[in-house]
C-alpha cells in the first residue's frame, strides 16, 4: 500500500551503497573511533541520499516522507549503528526545521551543502546540565548589532567533531521557557567554538560524539531559522522525524540479528542437536520477530500519517519508546544464544548490543517519551501540566 516500485528501487540502491561503501570499512571505522564523514557523505550526497525529501531547489529529490522511510530502513543494513545514526542526524534531525521554516538564503547556505554532502551537520540540543530536559537548557544568544553572541555548551553531540555547522537550540530571551528559544545555524569554524573533547562511549564507536563549548561566538542574525522564540516549537516538529528515524533505522539490524542468530544456531550442534532445535530458542525467535513486526506496523502507520500531513508526535514517540525497548531485548536475547562467540569484541551481535543500548537513552530517554505520551493523554499531574 505504502510502498511502490519506486520505493523498492530506492531501497535497492541504498542497500547496494551500504554494501559497497560502508560495510567493508565498518570494522576499521569502529577501531578508529570515527568514520570519514565528509568523504562518505559526499558519496551519499552524489547519489541524492542526503536529500530524499528535501526540495529540489537545494538539490534534494523532493520526494515525500515514505521515501525517507524506505531510505532510513535500508540504512539499517549497515553493520553498525554509527553511520546510520550520523546520516539520521544529517537528514532527519539537524535539517528538517531548516528545510521547512528556514529562509531561502539560509537554506542555500546550510541545507544545500548538507544535501550535497559537502557539509556535515550536527544538532545542538542536549546540554551537560539538562540531559533530556530540553526546555531548561542554558546556552544563550544575545543580540549585538546584527549578530548573536552565543555562550554555553552542548553535550553528546553526534557528528560533533567533524561537523561544519550545528543547528543550535538556545535561549534568546528570558521569557517563558517554551517561548524563549531559537534555532540558529552556527558554523563550527566560527571563533569561540571549541570541541572540548570527543567522548569515549560503550558503543556507537565509529560515531564521533562531542562536548562543544561556545564562548562569545558571534554569528549573524540571519543564521536564525525563521522566527525568534519559536525554536522550541520547531524543535518539537523536528523531533518527530528524529524519533521515527531512530525506530526505522533499527528494524533491519534487529531482523538481521534474528536471521544471523537463526543461521548460527542452526549450524551449531550441542548436546546432540542444533541449538535452534531447542524449543525455547526457536519460539524466542518467533516471539521477537512478532515484536519487530509490531514496531514496523506502527512506524509505517506513523509514516503514512506524516505523509498525509498530520502531526505524528504521539505515534513517533511511541515508536521511539518501543524501538529502544525492543532493540535491547532482541540484541540481548540473540547474544545469549551465540554464547562465547557473541561475546567476542568483533561479533556483530555484540556490537548491536552495545550500539542499540543508546536508543533508549539518546534523543530523549524512554522516560522522556513516556512523559510526552502522558502529556498527550492528558494524565500528567495537574501542576506539572501547566
Amino acid at each position, binding site marked *: 500500500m505504502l510502498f511502490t516500485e519506486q520505493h523498492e528501487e530506492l531501497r535497492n540502491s541504498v542497500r547496494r551503497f551500504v554494501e559497497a561503501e560502508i560495510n567493508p570499512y565498518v570494522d576499521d571505522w569502529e577501531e578508529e573511533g570515527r568514520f570519514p564523514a565528509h568523504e562518505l557523505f559526499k558519496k551519499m550526497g552524489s547519489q541524492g541520499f542526503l536529500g530524499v525529501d528535501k526540495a529540489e531547489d537545494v538539490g534534494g529529490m523532493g520526494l515525500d516522507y515514505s521515501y525517507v522511510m524506505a531510505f532510513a530502513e535500508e540504512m539499517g543494513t549497515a553493520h553498525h549503528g554509527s553511520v546510520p545514526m550520523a546520516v539520521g542526524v544529517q537528514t532527519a534531525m539537524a535539517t528538517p526545521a531548516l528545510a521547512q521554516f528556514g529562509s531561502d538564503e539560509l537554506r542555500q547556505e546550510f541545507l544545500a551543502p548538507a544535501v550535497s554532502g559537502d557539509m556535515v551537520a550536527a544538532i545542538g540540543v542536549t546540554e551537560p546540565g539538562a540531559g533530556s530536559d530540553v526546555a531548561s537548557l542554558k546556552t544563550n544568544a544575545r543580540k549585538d548589532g546584527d549578530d548573536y553572541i552565543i555562550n554555553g555548551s552542548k553535550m553528546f553531540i553526534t557528528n560533533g567533531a567533524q561537523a561544519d555547522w550545528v543547528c543550535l537550540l538556545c535561549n534568546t530571551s528570558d521569557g517563558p521557557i517554551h517561548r524563549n528559544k531559537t534555532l540558529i545555524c552556527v558554523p563550527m569554524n566560527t571563533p569561540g567554538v571549541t570541541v572540548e573533547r570527543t567522548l*569515549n562511549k*560503550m*558503543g556507537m564507536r565509529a560515531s564521533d560524539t562531542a562536548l562543544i563549548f561556545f564562548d562569545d561566538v558571534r554569528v549573524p542574525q540571519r543564521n536564525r531559522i525563521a522566527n525568534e522564540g519559536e525554536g522550541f516549537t520547531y524543535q518539537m516538529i523536528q523531533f518527530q522525524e528524529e524519533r521515527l528515524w531512530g525506530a526505522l533505522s533499527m528494524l533491519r539490524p534487529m531482523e538481521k540479528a534474528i536471521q544471523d542468530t537463526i543461521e548460527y544456531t542452526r549450524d551449531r550442534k550441542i548436546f546432540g542437536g542444533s541449538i535452534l532445535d531447542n524449543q525455547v530458542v526457536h519460539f524466542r525467535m518467533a516471539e521477537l520477530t512478532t515484536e519487530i513486526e509490531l514496531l514496523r506496523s506502527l512506524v509505517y502507520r506513523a509514516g503514512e500519517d506524516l505523509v498525509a500531513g498530520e502531526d505524528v508526535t504521539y505515534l513517533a514517540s511511541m515508536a521511539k519508546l518501543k524501538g529502544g525497548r525492543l532493540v535491547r531485548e532482541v540484541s540481548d536475547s540473540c547474544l545469549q544464544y551465540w554464547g562465547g562467540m557473541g561475546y567476542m569484541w568483533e561479533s556483530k551481535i555484540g556490537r548491536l548490543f552495545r550500539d542499540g543500548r543508546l536508543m533508549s537513552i539518546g534523543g530523549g530517554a524512554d522516560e522522556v517519551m513516556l512523559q510526552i505520551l502522558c502529556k498527550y493523554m492528558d494524565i500528567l499531574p495537574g501542576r506539572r501540566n501547566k
Partner: protein
Amino acid sequence: MNIPNQPSSLYYTDEHVAFRDTMRRFVEREIEPYATEWDEAEEFPRELYKKAAEVGLLQLGYPEEYGGITCDRFFNVIVAQELARAGAGGIYASLMSHTIGTPHLAQFGSDELKARVLPSVLAGEKIAALAVTEPSGGSDVAQLKTTAKRDGDDYIVNGQKIFITSGVRADFYTVAVRTGGEGLGGISLLMIERDRPGFERTKLKKMGWWASDTAALYFDDVRVPVANLIGEEHQGFKAIMHNFNYERLGMSASALGYAQTCLDEATSYAKERHTFGKPLIENQVIRHKLVDMAMRINSGVAYLENLTWRDMQKERVVADVCMLKVHATSTMEFCANEAMQILGGAGYMRGGKVERIYRECKVMAIGGGSAEIMKDLAGRQMGL
C-alpha cells in the same frame, strides 16, 4: 567499620565480618583506584596476585599443607561480593582463575602434583587456569575433541581450547583432554605447564572483562608426562562436573555483587543529578526502579546464603544452584540495564562501573552454563 546492607545473620561469624572488612579495604586500596586503567589496558600487574595472597584472598578453602587456609564457603561468598564492589569483572576473573583452575587438582590430584603446583599458585607467584571449552563444543563437554594419546610415560596432546580465562598469562593449565573413546567416559584432566613445546596461546578481544587475559590455546603435539594426570584416567568428566556447583555458586555471588554495585551507583547518581528542575530521585519511577533492583538482589542473596549453607550440609543442591545462577545473573542484567537507564548518557560513557558491568552481564549469563542450559539441567534434576 561500616558494612552496609549487612543484616544480622545466622551464617556470618565475627571472623567473617573481620574478613569482609579486610577484603573491603583491600579492594578499595589495591583495585578500585586502578580498575578503569587496568581494564582499558586489558591487563593488570602480576603483583596483584601476590598482594592478594598477602591478605589471604587466594588461599581460601585450600589445604594448609600447601599454603591454603581452612574455612567455610561463606568466605568465598564474601570474596565475590567485596571484589564486585570494584565493578571490574575482568580483574576478578583472572585474579581468581585458580579457583576454577585448581580445585580438581586439590581434590583429586596426586600429592606430588599438588606440591608442585599449589604452593606457588596460592602464594600468588604463579597463575593457574582451566581449559575445557573448545571452539566447536561450547558447554557440551561430551563433544571434546582435544586428544591426549599415551606414548610411554607421556601423553601427546593435540587440539584447541577457547575462551580460557587467564589463558595468556597462566603458568599452569588444567586441560580437559580425550584419553579414551567418545562421550563422557573418555575424558581426563591434565596439568600442562605453559612452557611445553607446541603449546601456543593467542589473546581474544571481548565485549567486557578486558582486564582479564582471555585466550585461545593451541596444542600441537605437546608432550606431557603421565605424572601430570589429575586424578584417574578417563575420570575427568566427574571432576569437571563436581566443580561446576562451586563455580556457579561463586558466579551467583559475584553477579549479585555486581548488581548491588549497580544499585549503589544508580542510587548515588539519582540523588545528585537534577533534571527538569528536581533531583532525579524525586521521580517515583526512579525510586521504584531502585526498589525493584534491591528486591531482586536481596532475595537472591537470601537464596545464595541458604544454598551455600545447604551445600555445606552435603545436601544435593544441583537444581537449586542452577536456578540461583539464572536468578542471580538475570538480576545482574536487570540491575545493569536499569542503572544504565538511570545514569543515561553518563552511563553510556566509558570509564564508569555501570558501563563496565553492563558489558560484563553476558559473560556471566553465558559462562559456567547459560541460562538455557541451567534450566534444562534443573528440569532434569527435578524430574521434569
